[in-house]
Structures are given as C-alpha cells and as structure tokens.
C-alpha cells in the first residue's frame, strides 16, 4: 500500500466511533478476544493507542522493555532477529503479547515495511480493565495463556529438532 492509497485526510474526516468499531472488529478476529462480546471490546478501544509508522521505521527493538501487545491495523510490518526475517505481519496480525503478562525485554526487532497504523494495548490498561470487568478479563487472560502455551510448545519443538 502506498501513501496515496492511504491519505492522511481520510482519517481526519472519519468518525472516531467508526474507527473504534473497525479496531474492535479486527481484535475480535484474533484468538486473544475469543468469547468476548463486541460491546466489551468497544469499551476497551478508547484505552488503546494508534500510532503511525513510516516504511523502515522501527516499532520496537530487541532488548527494549515491552509494555503491551500491538495489532497491525493497516500496512505491513516485519519481525526480525539478527537481521533474519522471522515473519511478515499484515492487517489483523498481532505481536508482542508476552509483554501483557510480564515486564520482559523484547526478543525481536519489529519494523514497518509500509506506511502502517499499529494499535497498542498496554499491560496497565489491561490491569485496569480486569479490575473493572473481571469476568471478561478472565476470558482474555485464558485466551492469552492458551496463545503463550501454544508458543511454548512450538519453541520446544524447534529446540527438540535442533538437538536431534
């Protein structure tokens, strides 16, 4: 997508509610929000942060403290480690979810490859949300645990293959 495909003024005249709805719908398609109702997700969106990145601009680097999960709203980003591309993420993909649980250092570099809009959902906002809506918060945390367990299984598999 070029800058012409995504003019700046398009967002200026877009109603915030409409934008929030598209963010909520995108989150709902991810396994993080399985079993969470649209209205509950919509209530969280005002506490999420939309950031705009230019091509080749780093979103975060390995070794920096992470604070939250990020969702690609528009554009494209690349996940790299030691200069090797591990994954290319498109709208609807999310990354950095480990930071929702613990204050750990980021384990990979993530860089925008096109003009991109990234939505951040930060750990302290998640904690506030859990305090206000514990039932929905519990569903979210179960989803997160499932994703992290799956990632752990995949990592173990890769380590096992290396040892063989």
């Amino acid at each position, binding site marked *: 997508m070029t800058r012409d495909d995504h003019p700046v003024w398009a967002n200026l005249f877009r109603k915030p509610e409409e934008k929030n709805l598209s963010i909520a719908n995108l989150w709902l398609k991810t396994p993080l929000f399985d079993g969470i109702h649209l209205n509950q997700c919509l209530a969280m969106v*005002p506490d999420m942060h939309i950031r705009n990145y230019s091509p080749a601009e780093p979103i975060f680097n390995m070794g920096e403290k992470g604070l939250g999960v990020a969702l690609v709203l528009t554009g494209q980003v690349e996940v790299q480690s030691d200069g090797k591309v591990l994954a290319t993420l498109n709208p609807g993909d999310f990354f950095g979810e480990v930071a929702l649980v613990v204050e750990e250092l980021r384990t990979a570099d993530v860089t925008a490859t096109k003009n991109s809009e990234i939505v951040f959902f930060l750990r302290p906002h998640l904690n506030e949300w859990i305090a206000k*809506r514990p039932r929905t918060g519990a569903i979210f945390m179960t989803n997160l645990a499932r994703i992290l367990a799956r990632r752990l299984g995949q990592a173990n598999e890769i380590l096992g293959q290396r040892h063989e």
Partner: protein
Amino acid sequence: MNSWLRSPAVQSSVVFFAIVLVFVFFSMVLAPVLISVVVSFVLYTLLGPVNNSLVRTGLGRNKSAGILLLAAMILVGLPLLYLVPIISEALAGSAKTLGSARTNIEQVVELIALQGAKLGLSIDSAQFIDVVNSRLTKYDQSTLISASNYFLSVTGSLLLVPFITFFLIRDYGSLRNRVMAVLPNRFFELGWLIYFKVADQLQMYVRSVIIQQGILAIIASIGFWLAGYPAPIVLGLIVGVLSIIPYIGPALGLIPPLVIAIGMEPFNLLFLLSAGLVIVVAYTIDNILVVPVLIAGAVNLHPLLVIVGIIIFGNALGMWGMILAIPFLAVAKILYRELFVGLHSMHSRRIT
C-alpha cells in the same frame, strides 16, 4: 554530535530536568487553584478503587462519576461544615484568651523557675516573661484577622474540589491518553512505562499517607477525649493532617491543645502536660507500628536522602517544600532510573 552528549546518562539528565521544568511551569500557572487541584487528585486516587467497583456493577462512566461527585461533596463538605464554625470561633476567641494565657504563662514560668531553684539552677523568670509578653503583643488582633481570612480563602478554594474530582474521575483517562499521544514513536512505550510506574508510586504513597494520618487522628482524638479536652475530634484531625509535615508536624499539632490549656481558667499544669503525653503516645504508636508497615513500603528511599531532601526543599519552598519533598524524591528516583535504563537499552542497540 559529541559522543558524551549521546550518552544515556546525559540524555536522561536533560529529559529529567525538562520534565521537572514543565512540572514547575504548570505549578506556577495553576498556582491560584493549586490547593484545589492537589486535593482533587488525592480524592481521585482514593476514589479510584470505588469507581472500579461501581463500574463492575454495570454502572456507566457518567453515573459512576456522578455518585462519586456526591461522595466527594460529602467527604469535603461535611468536615468543612463541622470545622468552619469551630475554627472561626476559635480564631475569634483567641484574642480574648490572650489575657488569661499571659497570666497562665507567667504562672508556668514562675513554677519552672521555682523547681529549677530547688535543683540549684538559676532561671531569670522576669526576663523570660518580658520576652513572652512582647511576643504576645505582636500576636495582636490583626494577625488573627489575617489568619481567619486565609482560612476562609482556603475553604473557598476547597469548594471547587468536588467538581474537579468529578471531571478527573470522568475524563482523566482520555485526557491523559491525548497528552501522551504527543510522545514520538521511538519513546512511546518507554514514556508510558515511566508514567505508569510514577503513577503507581504516587497512588501508593497518597493512599498510605491518608491511612496513616487517619490512624494517627483516631489515636490522638481518643487521647484528647480521655484527657478531657474540648472538641477532641477536631484536635485529633489537626494532629493527623499536620503529621504530613516531616519533623515539625508533631510540634505544630501540639499548638492548638497547648493554646487551649494555657487559656484555661483556673490554670492546670497536669492538663497542659497531658496534651504533650497524647502527642508522644500517638506518634510512638505511629512510628513503631504504622509507618514501618504503610509508608516504608510505599517509598523506598535512603533515610539520609530523605533528611537532606526535606532540609533543601523546606529551605527553598517552606512548608509546602517539606510536604512535597518525599513524594518528589520518590518520583524523581523512578523517573531518572527508568529513563536511564530505557535510553541505555536504545543506546547499546545503536552501538551494536
């Protein structure tokens, strides 16, 4: 750019002092309503968990904030309704009690001189009484009127508190998000990380101090009630509130009961000494049981740093400096440490 200018220590220091300057600038701009804003933030911190509970029951943001506005009005209004007449009366009445206080002070000084003489100490009671009399003459009616006016202006600005608290509960989150949106992409997560750590530290400190003051006020009130002082709750509240001023708070809390005891007719030395005993007992319980459990966990500062900080801040800003020294130092420590760690990780990334 010189390499030392790009070092994390220098960059952290520059950003740190820039943030302090912005804070000082806003404090100066908000000076006319600073007391109201500070008290509102304290109430907002206290009512935050209540707001979460209300939202949990299914109430919307506006309804929840409305209920808490009522709570804030009651929290601020009721003590004011109770205290304003008592304190105004006390200020107006103090001029009348000055006469009897003068006689009683003379009696106390003569008693001390007499006891001192028995122990072989020579105390010039006449000279001491002259000094006290000259000081009391300066403490004339005009001083009392200006103290009364100051009290009324503080009361007036406190009336704004419930409304500021209402808007903080309703809109603070979105206002904060808008302000933080100005952060550049590179420092977005670092900025929020520092904000949340500072906010957590301040909230914990404010909640701990309020609970500690409450416990101290209850102990002192019971003590004054047992000793037979009039308005023991007011005297206990004054002791609790003034305890926020490090080191001189206990002495300031002792002044109102001492004034009452000195102005009493007939003068009773035991009654006067009981005020000191109440303060000593209340602060002993506070320092042995309450402070180590509540405050020590809230701020992790070296005692020497606290003492030096209070002296420097007190010297620069007076009473407010002494009150703000501990939270400022606690916040400054987190701010600088997190800035340094964050910028250091970015710097080492650039080098490798």
